């Protein structure tokens, strides 16, 4: 029984079919990489899991039970944490405010416990190798691209959750920060979290993943163990939907590209 | 806004009084708005200022622009200035009462000017009799040439704003006359809100429903203009009896053209001179006795009153408001066509 299991997920936007009967699974303790070309449907799939998009068809199973995800809150309650590709931060709040958004700590009289939150925010950021954020009381509007991404990542790993999904978390990060995040991903998995990592960087994927799922034009081409494929095969799967006997049947991989 | 007027020389005695010159010559005047009648914009302020000068009083004139809160703050400012008498034309009885009790708190005497503050504490009421205005309108309408001799007349009412107590009184007046008139049937009644656009929309619909109506009981000249616009588009202007009120320049023009049957002329001087003279007497310590009383509908108090009578203006006496100086010939006769009519009707254009 996998921690996260998707069965036959389909999703259309008006005339656009973004996902078509996608199966996918992520196990506790594994890093599952979700790869695919631009516009393959990775982010759409992540948003479906996160309750941001309603699923048209198919089911999401958590620990083997089918769940209804209508709101991001539903996902959070099930222990799913997500860093979305479009980071979505509140520009008018500071770093602390964003990191604790929706889960603010309160103290006496139900007032916000700003001090505790500020300290936790600092510690988290430092552990992610961020040295240039001048103050956690800065508005996020003034952060650089990489700094914003770090805040979003920090926000999602602050909480003990069952499933952590990262949609291209290192896209804007520097060399050192990228390393930290990959290490963090490994560490989370080792603690028994089911981690899903969306990335275009094949080096990172091959380095850190236990399992690799390839989306091709809205369909799941294949999901294999890392050890069963080479990097070249993965790239081939991404660009053409099949590689040798892996992937979609020939007709579909061509037909779908029409 | 305030206008200081009159002679602040305290030593000269008041015109008719034989008593000592008043210690305080300051009179505050609160006017209501600019929409219910054009009179509040120029006719009243001008006449009141003139009377103040004649009576050697210092007058401060404010217009509240339809805002009850504004009038309240203006009253406070005037009391702050130290006026001894306050003339109030209320926006409604409630806010008028608040001002009068405020004035009372500060020992300032109040006079209801033109509008009675029901439940208020004014010492005097100076006005035209508004129910009588309405009755005059009703009577004049029934004797318009368009309807005389007809056995059956269908008519419609277009009333003033329901937020304005005067509109209620006017309606009370003309309805009491028209409902008793034999052969007259009311086809519809709506409010025009003192607003020409509303009146025009409303009357357009009324005419569509009742194309054979014979008379339109419309509360003032501004709304009458809208009624005439619609009638004109149907070639009915002049064939339907249309009422009015206020003797505005446009109204007088319509009366001369025959598209409006009459208007009601309420010479402001009749009110203003009484009120200002009264204020002067109060300031000099007298307590004049009024010729009549009006019963306050809420408290039953008999308010000492000075009531003036309105004049119905038809084509026959259309020149009167101009010769009185209530309107200028230039504003009544702006175009060559009207100038010709003016000359025919005895209004002399420069």
């Amino acid at each position, binding site marked *: 029984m996998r921690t996260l299991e998707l069965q036959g997920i389909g999703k259309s936007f*008006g005339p656009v079919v973004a996902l078509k009967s996608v199966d996918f699974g992520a196990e506790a303790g594994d890093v599952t990489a979700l790869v695919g070309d631009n516009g393959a449907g990775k982010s759409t799939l992540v948003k479906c899991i996160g309750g941001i998009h309603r699923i048209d068809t198919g089911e999401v199973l958590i620990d083997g039970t089918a769940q209804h995800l209508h709101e991001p809150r539903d996902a959070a309650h099930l222990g799913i944490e997500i860093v979305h590709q479009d980071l979505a931060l509140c520009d008018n709040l500071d770093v602390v405010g964003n990191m604790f958004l929706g889960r603010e700590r309160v103290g006496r009289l139900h007032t916000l416990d700003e001090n505790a939150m500020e300290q936790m925010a600092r510690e988290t950021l430092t552990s992610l190798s961020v040295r240039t954020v001048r103050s956690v009381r800065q508005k996020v509007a003034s952060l650089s691209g990489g700094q914003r991404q770090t805040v979003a990542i920090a926000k999602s790993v602050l909480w003990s959750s069952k499933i952590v999904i990262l949609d291209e978390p290192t896209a804007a990060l520097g060399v050192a920060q990228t390393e930290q995040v990959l290490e963090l991903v490994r560490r989370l998995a080792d603690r028994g979290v089911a981690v899903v990592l969306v990335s275009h960087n094949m080096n990172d994927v091959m380095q850190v993943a236990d399992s690799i799922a390839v989306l091709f034009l809205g369909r799941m081409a294949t999901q294999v163990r890392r050890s069963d494929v080479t990097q070249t095969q993965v790239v081939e799967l991404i660009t053409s939907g099949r590689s040798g006997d892996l992937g979609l049947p020939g007709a579909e991989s061509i037909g779908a590209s029409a | 806004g305030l206008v200081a007027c009159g002679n602040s020389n305290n030593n000269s005695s008041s015109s008719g009084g034989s008593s000592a010159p008043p210690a305080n010559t300051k009179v505050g005047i609160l006017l209501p708005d600019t929409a219910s009648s054009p009179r509040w914009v120029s006719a009243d302020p001008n006449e009141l200022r003139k009377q103040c000068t004649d009576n050697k009083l210092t007058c401060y004139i404010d217009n509240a622009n339809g805002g009850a809160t504004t009038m309240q703050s203006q009253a406070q400012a005037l009391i702050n200035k130290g006026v001894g008498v306050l003339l109030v034309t209320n926006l409604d009885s409630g806010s008028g009462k608040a001002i009068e009790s405020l004035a009372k708190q500060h020992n300032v005497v109040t006079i209801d000017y033109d509008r009675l503050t029901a439940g208020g504490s004014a010492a005097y009421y100076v006005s035209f009799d508004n129910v009588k205005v309405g009755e005059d309108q009703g009577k004049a309408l029934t004797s318009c040439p368009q309807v005389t001799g007809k056995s059956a007349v269908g008519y419609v009412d277009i009333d003033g704003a329901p937020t304005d107590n005067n509109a209620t009184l006017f309606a009370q007046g003309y309805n009491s006359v028209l409902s008793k008139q034999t052969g007259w049937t009311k086809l519809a009644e*709506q409010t025009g809100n003192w607003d020409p*656009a509303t009146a025009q929309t409303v009357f357009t619909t009324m005419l569509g429903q009742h194309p054979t109506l014979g008379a339109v009981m419309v509360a003032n000249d501004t709304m009458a203009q809208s009624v005439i616009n619609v009638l004109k588009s149907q070639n009915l202007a002049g064939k339907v009896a249309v009422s009015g009120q206020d003797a505005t320049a446009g109204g007088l023009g319509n009366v001369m053209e025959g598209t409006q049957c009459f208007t009601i002329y309420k010479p402001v001087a009749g009110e203003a001179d009484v009120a200002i003279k009264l204020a002067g007497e109060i300031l000099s310590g007298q307590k004049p006795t009024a010729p009549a009383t009006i019963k306050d509908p809420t408290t039953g108090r008999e308010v000492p009153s000075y009531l003036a009578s309105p004049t119905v203006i038809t084509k026959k006496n259309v020149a009167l408001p101009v010769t009185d100086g209530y309107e200028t010939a230039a504003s009544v006769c702006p175009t060559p*066509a009207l100038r010709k009519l003016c000359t025919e009707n005895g209004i002399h254009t420069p």
Partner: protein
Amino acid sequence: MNAVLTEKAPQHQPAPSALAEYLREYVARLRGGELGSAPAVVGLIVITAFFAIVHQGFLSAYNLEALVIQAAPIIVMAMGLVFVLLLGEIDLSAGTTGGLCSAIMAVLLLRHGWLWWLAILAALAAGLAIGFVMGWLRSRAGIPSFVITLATFLAFQGATLILVGGQGSVILPAGSPLINLENSFVPLWLGWTLLGVFVLGYAAVKLGDAQARRRNGLTATPVVVIVSKVLGVAVLGAAFTYEMGKNRNLITNAFFSSKAQGEPWVVVLLMVLFVVWHFVLSRTRYGRHVYAVGGNEEASRRGGVAVSRIRISVFVICSGMAAVSGLVAASLLQSVQSNAGAGNTLLLAVGAAVIGGTSLFGGRGRMIDAVLGGLVVAVIINGMSDLIQGSNSSGYEWVVTGAVLLLAAGFDAVVRRGKTL
């Protein structure tokens, strides 16, 4: 264009142009929430049907004319507001700007003896100047437009009062051409000719577009779809022109043979304004830039759009159209009041644009929104004035008007649910 990219010149696949394909796409677009004018049109039909049922004469030629001339000032003002709203701005003073400009016209005409067309030009110039100043304040001084136009809303109300002065209103002389706008009618032959020109022009443009696209190998609207659209417009227009061709004089007898026949001239004005502004918004660079700035100001600035010039220009257009609207209202009332343009004028015009489908947050809106929304509002007001009677009617009328407005907007919103860009 940089030749670097053309090294790999691609094959563009010829597009399928079948009607079936087009309809499939259209339905999918509708389902996906791109509704265009559909909700406003359906809303207009429903409300009209409602009033036609409860109120006998509602669809008579007489009332149809009344409807059109009452709707005209609202529609014209809403057209101008669309520009401002497209940038996510607001002009609270459009109503009083119109009032002030019409007061300027009336005073110049009557008290200073100007020629009528000079007075009108002066009023329009005043409108443009007002818009320029407000746009400048917004764009250069950076004051929020809500505050600027709140201030001018108050100030212009005062200025109109000062100009019109103690008489409460300035009455326009009977024969003046301005009055003809709302009170005089297009000869029947001219009405039909204009309709013909409009329909043929519409057909020519649409067919020409499709032709050009097909020549370039791009997907184009199928001819049969264009033809049915053109036919639809032609039938509606013909029905209107025919209805307006009836004599609307309620009473005829031996003495009066005059007829009220033909559409009011203001219809022609509305058509011209609509065509011009629709063209500007949808087919010119300027229009594209208006949308761009409304969609993402920073992106437009980076793209080289002269953002502050665009911002000023929409205020100029809006105030200019407000001046036109004020003149149309003056023509309707044959006079200018000291409180012209105050009251609910502006709110109703904004409401019209929004009900038509224009967003208050910028970036979404079209000219047709102003027309359709303005008609919805006018139908509500006209219908309402017969529905509720009595001397205290205005209270009930306000309540019901509010309720109907809410229903119209609610219908629109539910249909578009969550699709507001």
